[in-house]
C-alpha cells in the first residue's frame, strides 16, 4: 500500500501523518512518554510515536523486545506506568478497545465447537440466528475452516487454532486489528491466506498492526515498520526505507540474521 494513494500525506521522520482529518481516524495511534515498569524492570519505554492511520504497520524486534506488551498497552489491556495513548482523538480505554480486535500470540479459544467460538462473539451484536449462522459460515470459509465447524475448537491443530482466532477477531468488524504473530505456526498456503485477509482488511479501511519475525512477510505487508529493542522504539518509518537502509545497528543486525545484543 505504500505508494498507492497519491493524495496521502508524506510521512514525517517519525512516520506520522499531518493532515487534521487523519488525526481523527480510529487507526491514528499516538502515544507519548509511554513507559511500563514491572518489578523494577523497564519493559516498554517509548518517547513518542504517531502511526500512519491507514497503513499496515509491522512491528519487528527480537524475542523479549516488548512487542506483545506494546500491543496489550495500546489495546488498553494493561495500563502503562506512565504516559498516554490515544486512538484518533479518543484516549485509549474501553471505548477504543470496543472498536478493535486482537489476536494473541497464544490463541485463547473457548472450550466449545469451532462455530460456537465465532457465535460467542457474533451474539453480542443484534441479528437473527440465521444471519449469525450465515456470517459464521462466511468467516470460517474465509480462514479455511468451514469443514471443521462442529469440531471442538481445542482439538484443532496449532495453525488451525490461529486461523480460528483470526476469524473470531474479524467477526467484530474491527476498525483496528492487532495481530501478534498470527502466522507463526502456519503452513505456506495458510500464511498466504492470512496475508490476503490482512491486505483485504487494510483495503477496507481497517488499521492493521502486525507483529512478525518473518522478514519476507514484513516486506510483503508493511506500509511502515516499527522496530523495538529492549522495550525501546529504535526505528519507525516507511517500510521501503527500513528494509533498504535500516538506520539502527540493532535493526541491521536483526535483518541480517545476526544475534541482536
Amino acid at each position, binding site marked *: 500500500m505504500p505508494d498507492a494513494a497519491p493524495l496521502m500525506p508524506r510521512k514525517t521522520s517519525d512516520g506520522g501523518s499531518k493532515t487534521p482529518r487523519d488525526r481523527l481516524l480510529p487507526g491514528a495511534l499516538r502515544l507519548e512518554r509511554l513507559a511500563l515498569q514491572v518489578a523494577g524492570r523497564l519493559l516498554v519505554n517509548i518517547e513518542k510515536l504517531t502511526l500512519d492511520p491507514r497503513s499496515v504497520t509491522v512491528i519487528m524486534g527480537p524475542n523479549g523486545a516488548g512487542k506483545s506488551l506494546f500491543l496489550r498497552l495500546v*489495546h488498553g489491556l494493561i495500563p502503562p506506568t506512565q504516559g498516554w495513548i490515544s486512538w484518533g482523538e479518543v484516549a485509549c480505554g*474501553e471505548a477504543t478497545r470496543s472498536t478493535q*480486535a486482537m489476536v494473541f500470540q497464544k490463541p485463547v479459544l473457548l472450550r466449545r465447537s469451532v462455530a460456537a467460538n465465532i457465535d460467542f462473539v457474533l451474539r*453480542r451484536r443484534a441479528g437473527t440466528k440465521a444471519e449469525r449462522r450465515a456470517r459464521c459460515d462466511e468467516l470460517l470459509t474465509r480462514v479455511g475452516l468451514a469443514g471443521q465447524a462442529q469440531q471442538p475448537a481445542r*482439538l484443532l491443530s496449532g495453525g488451525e487454532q490461529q486461523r480460528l482466532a483470526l476469524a473470531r477477531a474479524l467477526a467484530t468488524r474491527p476498525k483496528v486489528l492487532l495481530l501478534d504473530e498470527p502466522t507463526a505456526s502456519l503452513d505456506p498456503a495458510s500464511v498466504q491466506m492470512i496475508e490476503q485477509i490482512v491486505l483485504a482488511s487494510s483495503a477496507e479501511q481497517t488499521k492493521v498492526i502486525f507483529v512478525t519475525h518473518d522478514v519476507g512477510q514484513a516486506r510483503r505487508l508493511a506500509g511502515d515498520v516499527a522496530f523495538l529493542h529492549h522495550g525501546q522504539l529504535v526505528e519507525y518509518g516507511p517500510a521501503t526505507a527500513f528494509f533498504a537502509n535500516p538506520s539502527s545497528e540493532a535493526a541491521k543486525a536483526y535483518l541480517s540474521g545476526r544475534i541482536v545484543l
Partner: protein
Amino acid sequence: MQDFAGAFGLAFGLIASGDADLFEIVGLSMRVSLMALLLSCLIGFPIGALLVVRKFFGRGIVIALVNSMMGFPPVVIGLLIYLVLSRAGPMGWLGLLYSPTAMIIAQTVLIAPIVAALSRQVLEALQAEYDEQFRSLGISRGRAMLALIVDGRYGLVTVALAGFGRAVAEVGAVIIVGGNIEHLTRVMTTAIALETSKGDLGMALALGIILMSIAISVNLGAGALRAIAERQAYA
C-alpha cells in the same frame, strides 16, 4: 445381637427382595440430597464465578469466609437451622421443622459454601486463561460469568458430585432438623444410626452397603467425566 455373617446375609436379603421400607428410606435420602444439591449449585456456581470475575475490595475476606464455612461442623449448622425453624424462631410460622423441606434447607446451608468454594477454585484457572481475551472482546461481567460456568462444566460437575457425596453422607444436621421420623424424615444416615443402636444390624448394614455404593459410583462418575473432558480437550 446377630453375628457378623448373619448381618451381611440379612442385609443382602433386604436389598435383593427390594424391601419397601429400605427403598423408601433410600428414595427420601436421594430426593433430599439431590434437591439440596440443585439449590446449592444454583447458589454456589454464580457465587464462585462472581468471586472470580470481580476483583472487588474485601474479596480475600469473602473467599476466606466461604472457605471456612466449608469446615463448619454439621451439627452446629443443624442446631442453628433448628433455632430458626423452631416454633419460637424467626421462621417458625412456616412449620417446617421435622419435614423433608427442613432437611433440604439444612443440607443446602451445608453444601452451598462447599460448592461455591470449590467452583471458585475450578473457575480461577479458567478465568486466568480467558480474562484478557474477554476484555479484548468487551464481554460484560455477566456474560463472562456465564461463559466460565459453561466452559468449566466438566470441572463443575466434579464439584457437584463432591457436594452430593457430602450431602448424602451427612447425619448430624438432618437428624436435628428432621428428627428421623419413620416414613417422613428418615434417611439413610439417620436410619443407620438408629437401627445400629436398636441392634437391627441387618437393616443398618443394608443401608450402609447402598450408601457406600452411591459414594463409589459418584467417584467413578467423576473419574469417567474427567476422562471424557480430557478426550475432548475441554478439561
